[in-house]
């Protein structure tokens, strides 16, 4: 059969991709070289902060404002409760920022506003029966419903116990309330407390460690704290090295090559 390259080196946007990284080698991908160059290009570019666009008439944006950040799903109270609870799950300490500073509550807000919050890719058809633990989630609540109920319950329980809303309590009090939810010691209007807690815990860790494009892991600080390099193009030259290699992380934004 005639020699034919796989479709991958031929397609147009791949060629562009390679051109931008300065490495189109006769249409054939020579992996090691490309990977290495893309990796180092990106890193090199990263060190210098991007120059502001030169020809814009837009008035300067105040430095402390991020107009891309606001709420899509939460009320302000829900947001504050989430911020307080996730900060207890992943607190600030001498290693670095906690959930609050990393923007985890924004991450969760954005996730709940979209398909994930609506369980759009989950099987949510009835009937719903009581399940064995080995059969997994079998409740009727969508994630956004469970989260809203759980946050209400956090405040109601805090009010009962400490006469304060969740966000206003001391860290110790906040921990004791979360523990009660985790252990299912809370019985509030049928809210499945531990299921809510586990979901909040998972969302928190996703917000700490997902690509910053989703609103958390602010400035890649979550990654930096644990020496996670984010998404590099290639480790061909490092994979067999004995020593631990620290690198400045890269995010998907660093790979964006539009136009």
């Amino acid at each position, binding site marked *: 059969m005639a020699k034919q390259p796989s479709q991958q080196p031929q397609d147009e946007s791949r060629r562009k991709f390679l051109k931008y990284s300065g490495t189109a080698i006769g249409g054939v991908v020579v992996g090691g070289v490309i990977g290495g160059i893309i990796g180092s290009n990106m890193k090199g570019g990263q060190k210098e902060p991007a120059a502001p666009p030169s020809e814009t008439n837009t008035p300067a944006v105040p430095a402390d404002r991020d107009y891309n950040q606001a709420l899509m799903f939460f009320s302000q109270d829900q947001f504050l409760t989430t911020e307080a609870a996730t900060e207890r*799950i992943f607190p600030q300490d001498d290693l670095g920022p906690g959930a609050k500073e990393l923007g985890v509550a924004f991450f969760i807000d954005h996730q709940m506003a979209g398909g994930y919050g609506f369980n759009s*890719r989950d099987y949510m058809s009835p009937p719903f029966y009581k399940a064995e633990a080995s059969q997994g989630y079998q409740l009727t609540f969508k994630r956004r419903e469970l989260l809203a109920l759980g946050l209400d319950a956090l405040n109601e329980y805090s009010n009962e116990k400490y006469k304060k809303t969740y966000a206003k309590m001391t860290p110790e009090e906040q921990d004791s309330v979360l523990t009660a939810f985790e252990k299912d010691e809370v019985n509030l209007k049928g809210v499945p407390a531990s299921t809510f807690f586990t979901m909040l815990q998972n969302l928190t860790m996703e917000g700490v460690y997902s690509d910053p494009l989703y609103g958390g892991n602010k400035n890649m600080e979550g990654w930096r704290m644990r020496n996670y390099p984010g998404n590099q193009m290639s*480790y061909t030259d490092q994979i067999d090295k004995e020593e631990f290699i620290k690198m400045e992380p890269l995010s998907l934004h660093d790979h964006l090559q539009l136009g």
Partner: protein
Amino acid sequence: MANTLPKVPIVIVGMGWVGGIIAAELTKAGHNVVGLERGKSRSTQDYYHVHDELRYASRYELMQDLSKETVTFRNTEKVRALPMRSYGSFLLGDGLGGAGVHWNGQYYRFLPYDFEIHSKTIERYGKNKIPKEMSIRDWGITYDELESYFVKYEQMSGISGPSELPDNIGKMSIPYATPPMKMSPGMKLFTDASSKLGYHPYIIPSANLSQDYTNPDGIERASCQYCGYCERFGCEYGAKADPVVTVLPVAQKSGKFELRTHANVTGILHDGKKATGVKYVNTLTGQESVQPADIVILAGYVFTNVRLLLLSKLGKPYDPTTDTGAVGRNYAYQVNGASSVAVYEDREFNLAMGAGALGSSLDDFNGDNFDHSDLKFIHGANIRFTQTGLRPIQYQPVLAGTPKWGKDFKQATIHNANRILAVSGQGASMPNRYHYLDLDPEYKDSLGLPLIRMTFDFLDQDRELVKFIAQKTKEIADQMGATKTEIHDTIRQYNIVPYQSTHNTGGTIMGSDPNTSVVNNYLQMWDAENVFICGASNFCHNSGYNPTATVGALAYRAAEGIEKYMKKGGSLV
């Protein structure tokens, strides 16, 4: 109303590894083939922004949409099966290339023992070694008969592996297509430790290319970058062998292949003796079509293969109460859970780096490579250290006793992130009379058709296997120069929540008995000679290995069977 299309010679249901291989082989031989795939089309350019753990690994971007179709599950017949509402113990492929796009590429030929497990067990230990309800059997084909088909898959996909292999696994007539992957420091520690113990470690054969490779069809692919975003992701380099960068371009180039995406097949049409075609629904428009065909090939993975037969009332459904029938029989899985971790307080490893198939493993406790006389299980596990690239959302390592959240959790996970090497067993799974697939009596897919129902659990055989293999992993980990080690040696019931592996097997098993197997050893259906069914659904049990080497070999075998069938102009081949 259904729209009836002009008849075609061959129609394939599902365009993953099996569908892709068969499409390439048959079109190369000059036959016209229509490929039906329920998902969308794909190419490597879709993956320029693939290094996104949330989207691909946590939100399952490339997998089947469970809101449309899922599987129901129960541990035993005493319990009501309930739908797997979200992922999940296993992740189902969807779209061009199927799960072959987001797999790891760990490549293991099954052992010669696997294909003759029933006779070899009796030969060595006597009949009483096999528990009453354990339904192991010989496969109706031997390793030697499959050997040349393994070679075909290896040359096509460019498998990278060692030139010398231990004696305790099947012999190869032709070495792997490319040299083995690089060795990471963790692999060295595992290899040195297990060699010192007298075991026989080797670098895992890999479908991630160790170097640039041109295959016999002229397909060129680049080498792996050890990028750490492999399992659950597509490869932007085309370095990971997947159907979209290997076999499908060959089928497309032939001019004999017509691919229809968004085509969800809902039934096989037949007259009781032979299939006359398939029907499918366009998932975008809702239009139903009938595609008449001379030959129908099922390549839709285990659950679809079984479900379409049952929905179409083709073949004899398995009945566990009487132990008769065939379709749905011998569902098995993978018995993971035996592992030990080696924790290093004095050094860190580059564990974010890795490739899906990077690692070292040994088979001294796999198959029947060790004496089972005094053991309460048969078979065993491949024991391995893998370095697939640890990503932070999925990997938050804590040792026993650490809280699950809060300050101590944060400090422990950050401290441990690059200090733990895991040695684990990938255990074989034996079939049982009461483990099977059938149609769920209650739950339906988005078109109103019954979902497939799985009845499956871990039994004493599995718990004993895990306990034994775990001790071996501990023994190795203890030799790896770590500060301390920790063993995990207990599994309880099968739980569908945590991810374990997408190594589901059985349901349309092969064999030599038309009453209790679905296909012969050319994967041709006993009850309908123009239907070929191929995939891990043909496995009579699952070995202590990943399945795709054997799936790939069976696909080449099926392609040959189909050609034979066409030449003969009918009847069983």
